[in-house]
């Protein structure tokens, strides 16, 4: 294993984090908040560790998928550990575990909060919280790949390990160009939303934080009431952009190239749009009844695009919705957004492929000798992809079950426990009952919070990097034991 390259990358990631923290520090300065010093201390700490690591040239630049997974997992953990420091040092979140929960929730674009009163936080802290959504949405390593030139094609392993979706493809031949392109599209859409919100009369600070939350499909709001207090126009803008950020960025690239036909050919996109439309229709009907149908469309649309893209904003407390609507929302939590977007969940394309394999299996039961090639977008799905999706699905369920078992030790009601795990593993944010849109995660024990933190990381990195890391640690311990007994 190429350890030197892993530390080199981690060093760079910490430097980037230090650079990013300048923004909330400036914000704190503008508002004259004392807590701004916490950022300066953390910046110093990040650079103290990051600079020596990044200045030492790695011995070898050759690495493989294994290093890719491990690096990604370690990077996200070190980002979170350092990122939680400002909350803790400033005393705004006195418990370090809570601070860590909050920042992991930020970076993984989950949006679950342990804060009972968000409005009590300083502006600098709120901006940092939301900024982590924006960075976490597209990915820190992708960001790194965009700014530092990495020789060789191996860096594709970083991108594969970090980017969501069953198969990660480049948009253009060079990795760096691909990463830059992704961030350009991302930045462009973010700026557009900020401008549209400002036109709608939203204060600048709100527009920034809400847009970061939308773009990364995160979901940290800066008001105790969530998004409910904003105007209808502003809510509509947010609805549309949540939906847009849940679409595969390939589509936008094709649109930029003016290949409209190719852009809208995507099977995943069609499914995504259909699922969203059908859910809005059913929920509107269910919550509004035949008479109030049209009035119910607006909140239903907001909630559906918020949940399926795994953003987690709320305009209404859907705890009070009828069970049928709540169940639809829970199903949407698991489906998640499109591959190659900033959203979480299992991803529409995985679900589509899973459904196709089931259909295929049934038909081969009926016709023993039938041969059928599974296709998506008119292209054959490689067996390897299918296998990895199956394994992903199983691992997903196992992690879900194990987490639920541990969380249930807190003796909350079943819905709370179930949706708390679902909301964190799928990077959504709010669940139902106690952890519902108007509630928070503060009631849980430290053990539960730790499990949920793991779930958030596993969900954002699509499980395998975290499992690879556990596997590595395990084998290290085993070999250590063996040397001890000798």
């Amino acid at each position, binding site marked *: 294993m190429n350890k030197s390259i892993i530390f080199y990358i981690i060093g760079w990631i910490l430097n980037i984090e230090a650079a990013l923290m300048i923004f909330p520090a400036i914000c704190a300065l503008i508002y004259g908040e004392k807590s701004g010093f916490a950022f300066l201390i953390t910046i110093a700490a990040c650079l103290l560790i990051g600079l020596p690591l990044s200045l030492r040239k790695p011995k070898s630049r050759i690495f*493989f*998928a294994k290093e890719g997974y491990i690096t990604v997992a370690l990077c996200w953990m070190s980002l979170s550990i350092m990122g939680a420091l400002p909350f803790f040092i400033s005393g705004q979140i006195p418990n370090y575990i809570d601070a860590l929960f909050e920042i992991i929730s930020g970076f993984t674009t989950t949006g679950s909060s342990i804060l009972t009163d968000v409005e009590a936080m300083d502006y600098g802290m709120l901006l940092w919280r939301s900024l982590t959504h924006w960075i976490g949405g597209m990915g820190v390593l992708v960001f790194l790949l965009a700014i530092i030139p990495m020789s*060789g*094609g*191996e*860096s*594709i*392993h970083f991108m594969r390990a970090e980017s969501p979706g069953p198969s990660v*493809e*480049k948009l*253009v*031949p*060079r*990795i760096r*160009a691909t990463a830059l392109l992704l961030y350009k599209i991302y930045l462009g859409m973010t700026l557009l939303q900020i401008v549209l919100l400002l036109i709608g009369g939203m204060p600048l600070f709100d527009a920034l934080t809400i847009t970061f939350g939308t773009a990364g499909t995160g979901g940290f709001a800066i008001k105790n009431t969530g998004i409910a207090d904003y105007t209808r126009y502003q809510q509509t803008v947010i609805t549309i952009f949540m939906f847009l950020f849940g679409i595969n960025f390939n589509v936008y690239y094709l649109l930029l190239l003016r290949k409209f036909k190719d852009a809208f050919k995507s099977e995943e996109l069609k499914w995504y749009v259909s699922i969203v439309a059908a859910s809005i229709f059913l929920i509107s009907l269910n919550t509004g009844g035949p008479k109030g149908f049209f009035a119910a469309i607006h909140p239903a649309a907001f909630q559906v695009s918020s949940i399926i893209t795994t953003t987690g904003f709320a305009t209404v407390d859907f705890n009070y919705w009828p069970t049928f609507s709540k169940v639809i929302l829970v199903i949407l939590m698991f489906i998640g957004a499109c591959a190659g977007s900033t959203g979480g969940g299992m991803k529409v394309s995985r679900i589509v492929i899973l459904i196709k394999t089931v259909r295929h299996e049934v038909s081969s039961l009926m016709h023993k000798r039938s041969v059928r090639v599974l296709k998506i977008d008119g*292209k054959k799905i*490689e067996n390897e992809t299918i296998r990895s999706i199956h394994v992903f699905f199983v691992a997903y369920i196992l992690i879900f079950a194990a987490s639920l078992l541990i969380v249930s030790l807190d003796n909350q009601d079943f819905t709370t426990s179930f949706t708390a795990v679902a909301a964190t593993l799928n990077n959504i944010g709010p669940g139902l009952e106690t952890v519902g849109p108007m509630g928070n995660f503060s009631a849980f024990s430290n053990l539960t919070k730790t499990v949920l933190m793991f779930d958030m990381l596993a969900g954002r990195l699509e499980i395998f990097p975290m499992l690879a890391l556990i596997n590595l640690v395990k084998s290290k311990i085993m070999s250590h034991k063996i040397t001890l007994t000798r």
Partner: protein
Amino acid sequence: MKIIIVGCGKVGSTLAEQLDKEGHDIVVVDKKSAALKKVTDSLDVMGVIGSGTSHRTLLEAGIETADLLISVTGSDELNLLCCLIARKTSRCHTIARVRNPQYNEEIEFIKEGLGLSMTINPELETAVEIERLIRLPSAIKVETFAKGKVELLKLHIPEHSVLDGMKISELSDTLRCKVLVCVVERGNNVYIPSGGFELSSNDLISIIASPQNAIDFVHKSRILVNDIKNIMIVGGSTIAEYLALRLADSNINLKIIEQNLERCEELSELLPDAIIINANAADRDVLIEEGIEDIDAFASLTNLDEENIILSLYAKKHSKAKIFTKITRLTYEDIISEMPLGIIINPKFITTDSILQHVRAMQNCGGSGIEALYRIVSNKVEALEFYAGKNAKLLGIPLEALSLKPNTLVCCINRNGEITIPTGKDYILEGDTVIIVTTNKGLYDLNDILL
């Protein structure tokens, strides 16, 4: 440049690797996802799964904006069709690998008809390479620069040679011929020698000279080995056929040993002057009977690498012949290079090198890029030919006033076809091509040789 490579076998992936290093944007196209994955996992290139002859696949690979398409799949027809479709879709240049001898006879017509920039025939290229070495038997390796006006020869200094103990600076005066010794290999060490460097026997030296001077040098320094009169070729492959045809006009006696009777008859029809033996060369009596002890050159060109290695080792033991061994899969290069196999011939490397040269020449319509590149000592020393464009920073400055990178030697300046082996007073002008020998890696522009 944006380059599409169709087919990622050995040639395709080696091309992708080298062109990626030289800073081009590469898209590789292959039907097999496994082959593609191997390339895209290790190189910064984009992969597209699909057939190169499919218009849609080519569009997906971005043929509309590509500058060049290189088709190197295993099938000639596929390569030609792929290039044709690419030509009809966009204004890109096309290169196709075409190996069928029948197409080869009409290659000029095909090239013009299909608008190809270049076709490459691996077997023919290989035969040309072997022929060059047979005609200049003292050289271990011959490469050409400046469209054949300059040659780079690798020679072995025999025991008791006049060169033994001679200083490089005395060389041209003593022998009265203009050559430049640019690399000396002694044991495992490689030197780029200065004037005071003393040669000794058993050194491998690489010299740069015009072809006439090179022959003069070989004669005057008495490195000259007897001319090759008798050649034995094992394996009646296409390479053997091309080689025999190219040597037909000279006074060389050719003996080809081939197992397959039908193929023997074919060869005999094509090559009335050659002796065609129908036998299994693995049978050692056959080789003895056919006089392996008296031949001057031995080439093992069968389709099996292992058999070629064994045959060459056997020939080395029983004769003083110059030996050529064809090895297609060079996975264990380090072991193979230690065996006494004479000159290793790898058709795939030869193909790749020819295509690379073409691509480099194509690129240099303004910049100061590479015209030709040869590896003198594998992965240690390279000889590069650069075109001096407008942007070169060293124009008009005498070489002695330049601060070059260490271990970098300006070996030759070609000004409108006039070849100069430069001294410190010489300088480079715009439009010259310059040959540089260096141990530094990653020189892609003439300006890169400066500190």
